[in-house]
């Protein structure tokens, strides 16, 4: 596709500070390569991630959002990520039904020691988003 040459996907990573944020850090310090256009939002727990945040970021023009938290069973607050899973799974399915390509909203479990996994997840997300192209879902069209 034509846009591939100059356009790089802008991705928002919403990361739990106890695990995935540290995982991202590890990916950085151990020089794992992942797309540079990732903006990171640190949250206290994946359970804090409001679906509204995901939609708002797409509205503001991010090409994709990836939410990441501790593996099930490992939540610092015991159950936060289980609750997050319900909410995010439902949101993903519902957004798909509305017509938002599923590539744009991803979720993953990344622990503090999984720097490599983090880099892989982001690379995969970036690749998927490159397939679907820039996010023009909410673009203004002469309204």
């Amino acid at each position, binding site marked *: 596709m034509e846009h591939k040459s100059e356009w790089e996907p802008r991705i928002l990573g919403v990361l739990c500070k106890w695990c995935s944020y540290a995982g991202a850090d590890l990916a950085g310090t151990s020089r794992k390569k992942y797309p540079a256009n990732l903006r990171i939002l640190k949250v206290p727990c994946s359970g804090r991630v409001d679906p509204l945040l995901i939609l708002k970021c797409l*509205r*503001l*023009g991010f090409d994709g959002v990836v939410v990441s938290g501790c593996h099930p069973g490992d939540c610092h607050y015991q159950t936060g990520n289980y609750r997050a899973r319900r909410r995010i799974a439902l949101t993903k399915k519902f957004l798909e039904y509305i017509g938002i390509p599923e590539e744009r909203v991803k979720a993953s479990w990344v622990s503090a020691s999984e720097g490599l996994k983090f880099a892989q997840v982001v690379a995969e997300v970036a690749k998927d988003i490159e397939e679907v192209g820039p996010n023009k879902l909410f673009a*203004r069209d002469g309204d």
Partner: protein
Amino acid sequence: MTTKKIRKKDIGKLLGIWSQEFSVIVPSKEEGVAKMDRWDGKDISFLDWYRNTVVPSKDNFLPPMEKMFSFQKNRDGYHIEVPQDEQKQLIFGIRPCDARGIAIIDKVFTDTYEDRYYLSKRKNTILIGLSCTNPYDSCFCISLGLKPTESADVDLMFTDMGDEFLIEETADKGEELLAAASVVKEATKADEAKAKTVKATASGMVMRRIDTKDVGEKLQARFSDKDYWEKVAAKCISCGVCTFLCPTCFCFDICDELVKKQGARYRGWDSCSFRLYTKMPMENPREEKWQRVRQKVCHKFEFYPMNYDVIACTGCGRCIRLCPVNWDITQILSRLPGSVTSQSHK
């Protein structure tokens, strides 16, 4: 006042002539919702089904949302740009109640400060009325001193006489509009008589009434009666249907937006039914539902007449017809102590 006439099947031709100069707007349907929309250049089937639109024509002057200006920050500071809006439009088929509604809100938008967004559209618009020969059972325009065939607030008034329309030229602009149209003929005395019968029949079909005599004083006397207003407001769900769809409601909100460094200020409809409408950080003078319902009723029937000598209601009946809970202003007013109201409905 001179009268003309036109055959029904020639309406398309007349609209065609007007489209050369104006953006012609006619009743149309979108997803089953009757609204005023740009004429497609052919279809005049609305003459068969049209009674009234869901959203009154006020939205042609005060749209649900409009951009006031856009702004951008450069090296030397902020720059503001106002969208130009000079298109001449012609609305064909506005009902007398909605035309009166526009005349009523004109007063607000010209009071002290001229509202350029409203008035630029208003001044560039021709209103062509269509007598309401099949009013709804929720209509009560007669009580507001209005007839379903009233021609006072439009530039031309069309009245359906079967195969033909009688046209009244109520404004100078109206005469010019017909000058070039060969499909328009002079009306005869017989035509005028026929139209008169149609009009009388139409007026006779408006069954609902409210008692507007001293209504302001009666409401003033009730103002502090919390029990009364709580009872009146009990079933209201505080949505914006009655206000958004009211031809005389004009309240708006102003809101900024900034996406990807593109900024703009918008205004959009607002409603006194919403709690947020008057909410201040520390205090809300109309926090309770009954206070908001009271504001709505008193604004229309007490405050607006105090300010502008006219009741802010045209009896179009939308607030009754479209209310999710069938909250009925005519019942509310008839329950005001001292009101006489004859209602003939189920």
